[in-house]
């Protein structure tokens, strides 16, 4: 039997996985099995593909293909591989159902990427600046100059951390 991943070498690995008491088998050659072990996961992929068969197509309103990379939902159903980051937005609805089924969760609880942390920090700073400005205006209206001076200092600090 040929390897299910590279479809070139002879399969010497049988990957068995039990999902809901169903045993699924994937046949792989040694390097592919190893690459999968090191990286992706054949049993999960096999499980994904069988799930994809059961997932309804995206609703009519949703695009049939990703606006950014052009991947069709039907292509994804065949390979289990998305085309680009925007595919996650283009197919958000059906993917949400799929992730729930496959991963049992739809919310990431692990660490955030440094750039996401950076943009989160930036957002927090903008929010805080807006709130300080509001309070400063209010303090000036009340003629509470001591409070206003403190708020001004805080604003300055926020601008140049």
């Amino acid at each position, binding site marked *: 039997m040929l390897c299910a991943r590279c479809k070139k070498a002879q399969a010497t690995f049988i990957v068995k996985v039990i999902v809901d008491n169903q045993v699924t088998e994937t046949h792989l050659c040694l390097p592919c099995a190893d690459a999968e072990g090191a990286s992706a996961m054949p049993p999960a992929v096999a499980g*994904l593909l069988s799930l994809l068969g059961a997932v309804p197509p995206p609703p009519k309103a949703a695009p049939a293909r990703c606006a950014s990379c052009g991947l069709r939902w039907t292509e994804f159903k065949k390979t289990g591989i998305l085309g680009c980051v925007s595919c996650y937005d283009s197919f958000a609805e059906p993917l949400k159902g799929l992730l729930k089924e496959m991963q049992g969760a739809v919310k990431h609880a692990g660490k955030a990427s440094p750039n996401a942390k950076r943009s989160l920090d930036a957002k927090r700073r903008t929010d805080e600046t807006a709130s300080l400005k509001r309070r400063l205006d209010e303090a000036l209206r009340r003629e509470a100059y001591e409070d206003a001076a403190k708020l001004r200092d805080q604003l300055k600090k926020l601008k140049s951390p």
Partner: protein
Amino acid sequence: MILSAMLRVKMAWARPTGPRHEVVLSSRVRLARNLRSRPFPLRAQPADLAAVLKDSFAAAVASPSTAQAARVRLEDVDAVDREFLVERRLASRLLTETPVARGVVVGDREVLSVMVNEEDHLRLQGVDSGLCLEDLHAAVSRADDELGERLDVAYHPEWGFLTACPTNVGTGLRASALVHLPGLALTGQVNGVLQRLGAAGLIARGHYGEGTKVLGDFYQVSNARSLGPTEAELVKSVSDHVETLVRGETKARTELVRGLGKTRLEDMVFRAVGSLEHARLMTYEEAMQHLSAVRLGLSLGWELPTDLTTVNELTVLAQPGHVQMLAGKELDGPDRDFLRATLLRGKLQN
């Protein structure tokens, strides 16, 4: 050049120094990452792939964890070298079949490495001896943070790190351990044990030969999910289950050397030693069987003409690509089997 030099360097994971090394050969942690602005590798144009490779190598040079690492562009090395990288678990078939604009970054002792333009733009991995998933995760995660400071990594507030295949989305993490379970296999318990792992949400894979018998009783155990739990929870879950496997295997080995089974076990192990010391032709499958038996004998503390490091290394060196690397050229089956037998004889006699 670099690759032939690597053949002489001992792989960090082959040293029998890691925790639980009698049962756990090696631990591995990998993180899948992608750059926001480029299509995933399998859908990317050559120009996209080239840009990802260039940016990733530049980020690797600038990151403390990978600054000293070797950077290999797969199109710059020949077929034998590529096969070598595959067997050394540093590259995958996907990288070597289409080597243009694909690469690997290989750190000191091959503990930390990065595949560029595999199924995902970046696959960071850490491999080391014994059961050490927590430490490896810390090292890989640090390298990931450093690269993440220099690259625009795709991250979704709900779904975490975005990956080409939704089976990896979220943490992008796969923690796995390569375990040697001859005791459980010989006492007929291995299938039940693996089934329980499956029920607990883990994945166990065996390495099969022609038939249904597992080659050398080596199994890989890893987490099944990537989204939901934190990285630390996923790593701990795999680590805890592997600890349970180690206890089961150790108990099985103790039972095997008690009573009537001992002579049968000795016969199997010493026959394996004899074959490795004297055979003139040996297939990879046969070599794995014998190496597994010898490894069992060594871990029981028996006096044998070899040691665990050598046996661990031989499970890698006996692979077809490594044998060809030693020969410096591509070889036919019978030539490979001859060279493999010669290699094994040499290693066991010194």
